[in-house]
């Protein structure tokens, strides 16, 4: 009886968790291969047909970056007023104002800024990518590009990867600056005894050059992960129009998991800098 139950439990484990792990590994391998091919295309063909492809990069920066600026500014202002301002106020009240810079850099620059920006870009541009590319694939446009001798990765994927990487970096920078600014504004309104020069002086002291390097690397990689995962789901498999919505949901979940895993890697990296 016990043996039978044990066997049954093992079977259920194998068929659920085991399959899930195997599917996860397969997916990681496929997306990884897609990413490697995309990197190869980006390196070898960046300047090929630049008058066709470079405007597509600018278009992606416009769509994923510039058009998202207002929303990022709004979120940054809210973040600054609600969280940063209160933190500054609290730290000052308990006499720990010398840690303001460290806390802000750790929370906003290293963690919240990049991740929040990545999630916003994923919601706005990543989902649009899957829908656009999935529809293009379903409508046979990829085949058309091939018939014209145009590499679909070069024409469709490379501009999105570069565009999203640049966009997440720029938006995260804006988000950080606006958050810090609004944070001080809230503290000022609450009569926290700290001048603007002291506040930004502390922030400046808490930032090291490694922070800027890792910030740029992290945000760029977040953008690239969102682009690669969304393009992979849009393009890598034959799709019917009715499949596109389901694929979009999967892409969002996987891009979030990818960004969080990368974030964990960076947390470890920060321990060594």
């Amino acid at each position, binding site marked *: 009886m016990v043996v039978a139950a044990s066997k049954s439990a093992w079977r259920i484990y194998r068929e659920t968790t085991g399959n899930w792990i195997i599917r996860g590994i397969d997916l990681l391998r496929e997306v990884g291969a897609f990413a490697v091919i995309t990197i190869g295309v980006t390196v070898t063909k960046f300047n090929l*047909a630049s*008058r*066709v492809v470079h405007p597509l990069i600018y278009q992606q920066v416009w769509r994923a970056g510039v058009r998202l600026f207002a929303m990022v500014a709004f979120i940054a202002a809210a973040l600054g007023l609600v969280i940063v301002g209160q933190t500054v106020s609290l730290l000052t009240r308990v006499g720990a104002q010398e840690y303001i810079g460290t806390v802000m850099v750790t929370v906003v620059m290293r963690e919240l800024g990049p991740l929040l920006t990545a999630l916003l870009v994923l919601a706005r541009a990543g989902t649009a990518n899957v829908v656009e590319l999935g529809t293009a694939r379903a*409508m*046979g*446009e990829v*085949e*058309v590009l*091939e*018939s*014209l*001798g*145009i*590499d679909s990765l070069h*024409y469709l994927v490379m501009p999105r990867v570069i565009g999203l990487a640049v966009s997440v970096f720029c938006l995260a920078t804006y988000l950080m600056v606006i958050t810090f600014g609004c944070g001080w504004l809230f503290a000022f309104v609450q009569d926290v005894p700290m001048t603007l020069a002291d506040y930004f002086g502390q922030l400046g002291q808490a930032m090291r050059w490694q922070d800027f390097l890792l910030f740029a690397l992290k945000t760029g990689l977040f953008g690239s992960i969102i682009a690669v995962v969304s393009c992979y789901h849009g393009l890598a498999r*034959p799709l019917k129009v009715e499949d596109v919505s389901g694929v979009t949901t999967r892409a969002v979940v996987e891009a979030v998991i990818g960004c969080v895993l990368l974030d964990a890697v960076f947390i470890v990296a920060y321990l060594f800098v």
Partner: protein
Amino acid sequence: METEWIIELEEVDVTHPEGVETTLAQGVQWRIARGDFWVVGGPPGAGKSSLLATAAGLARPRSGVLRIFGCNAAEATEADQIQWRRRIGFVFEEGGRLFPQLTVAENVALALQYHTALTEEEIAAQVEQWLERVGLSAHANLPPTRLNEVWQQRVSLARALIMPKEVLFVDNPPVGRTRDGTWWRKQLRELAADGMTVVVGSNDFSLWLDTAKQFALVQDERFNILGGPDQVRAGTGAAWREYIMVD
């Protein structure tokens, strides 16, 4: 003079280009020589479009050997593929699959912009010339979705031919004794007269009898070469009559 085979299929099994595991045609033996004018017919869904895409190198055959300009497709490098794709034009069915985010002129110009170093003025002149030829220069700046499918397929012809091509595949051009059907037959006849190798997928052989040189039929997972117009006229059988509509 020795025949120059530019596309050869040996024992090729054709599947859907998007990888659906159903075999549409088995054991296809087909050789296309320079200057040929083929019409491939068959009932809807028999696999004409997939066969044309496979022969044009846009889809991998499930098995067998496909040679394009003497190059085995299974062993072709990316450079080989780009090289043959620049020599083969393909006009897709159902509106030619134009890019909806580009205008008509931008659709036609895309290959030139991508592959050549011509100036924008030179490209615009060529686009204008091709749109003139397909009778749509007045619609150059419209999105393709504003045109009907028949006109979209004309744009697709201009897009396929704006760079010099040696072979042209046309999948299901408008047929019938309409103005559009006549226009397409005239265009393809002129292209063939200029030395272009033409392969047309069509449900109606009767309209091509005075134009095409060779006819083939895809039916029941089989690819059968019927021969020239005379053999098609002499053909018999219910399926033949039903699907091919020979007068």
